[in-house]
């Protein structure tokens, strides 16, 4: 497996964490999320994002509400639920823990 492929696998697993982080900052709709992600290595397309968001909503990590928009149809604005908030904290702690572990092991 090429290094780039391995990184892809890692990024895939982290996408959910990133979305929790983005949604935690502000109420956002999908185009916003994509814009935020596009600036990073985690650039994602609708084809991936919608199924993921729907699963996160099923797991009650996020919820959405409809908002009218000036330009076009109403949009779904996503926000974090209580469960989502606690999971984000868990994620964050685990990530810090992983970082420390990686840095301490070996050279």
């Amino acid at each position, binding site marked *: *497996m090429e290094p780039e492929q391995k990184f892809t*696998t890692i990024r895939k697993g982290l996408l959910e964490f990133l979305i929790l982080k983005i949604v935690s900052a502000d109420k956002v709709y999908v185009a916003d999320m994509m814009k935020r992600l596009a600036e990073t290595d985690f650039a994602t397309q609708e084809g991936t994002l919608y199924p993921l968001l729907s699963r996160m909503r099923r797991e009650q990590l996020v919820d959405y509400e409809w908002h009218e928009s000036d330009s076009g149809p109403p949009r779904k604005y996503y926000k974090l639920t209580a469960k989502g908030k606690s999971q984000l904290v868990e994620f964050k702690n685990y990530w810090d823990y992983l970082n420390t572990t990686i840095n301490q092991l070996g050279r």
Partner: protein
Amino acid sequence: MNTVIVVNLNGNAFHIEEPGFDLLRTYLDGAQAQLRDNPDKSEIMADLEQAIADKCAHFLRPHKNVLSVAEIESVLKEMGPVQTDGNSASSSGASGEPQSRAAGAKGDPGAARRLYQIREGAMLSGVCTGLAAYLNVDVSIVRIIFVVLALLTRGLWIIAYVAMMLVIPFANTDEEHAAAAGTPFNAQEVIDRAKKHYSQFKNGREWRQHWRQQHREWRRKWHDGAYWWGQNLQRNVQQFGAHTGYFAQLLAGLMIPLLAIVSVVVFCAFVASLVMLTTTGALFGWSLLASMPLWVAILLLCFAYLIIASPLRHARRAIYMQRGAYREWFAVWDGIFSLGIWAVAGWLAYTHVPQVHDFFQHFPENVQTIWNNVAGSLHHAAAQKPPQSGSSPVR
């Protein structure tokens, strides 16, 4: 000028050129299939349609209200393939859903798989390795069947093979490798890919129908070509005979044995090359490329022979079919003469070529040797294949 189809994307009407519509439908059908076990399928589909509608709206102006194929293509490219994270059980952690899905796939062996080309262990492109994984049989068996089919269909199967090479996607990622060996598959995908290129094929039956039609067309052209060849030859013969029917008939009568001799010589050369190839692995001092397996060389040789031999045969037939009332006589004359040539050629070879003499003296052993060579090369090919990795998606 193009036919335009009006579609409803989550409540918005769009005018789309027909080929673009086919692309769009392929994409949405694929999304439906991906999401078929998803409880929120209809909601996600609505979201996707809305996103497509938003993107499409960017291309519309007051005086431009039809979306072209290229525009649809770019919209769909921006959307990206619809992936449910259930597919990547290895990366999305231990949420219950992916596991239950994986278990479902395993518990249902009747579930169809995805057909991919697998480069690992491939000889040419990976069609056979992919098909072997798909059918869960040894790759050698698939290869032997392919070679037999190529011979039975007189090389036409090679065209089918090339078509498969172009149409069947390659397995690149782990998920695709896993899918090649086991996870649920929609045959739709392969057809969709073909549909993308030939939007007029609406379903598998039309595909097959079209394929058969194409086949017949090729055959007809081939026959026409050979017929024309013979006719042309015959016309020349007639002109040479200065329109005297007698001379024309005489010359046709002479052409038949001439062509018969050429045919026999070509066939002998073919058999000699075949024997040379299987016993020494070289052809007239030109040794095989290291990377080219023996069976491919044999296949190429058979193909070359058919290309040379069948126009000759058709030309002969065309000559005597043209002789009107005398055609039976010419056919008989052709048959008898060919047999005669065969007998003479056989006798000459038997008495003057020691190898041929030996070959017939030790006929059974020779057949055994040739078979061993061919089987050996096939076995060797099978041995190059990496060990089966089972259906584990993690590598």
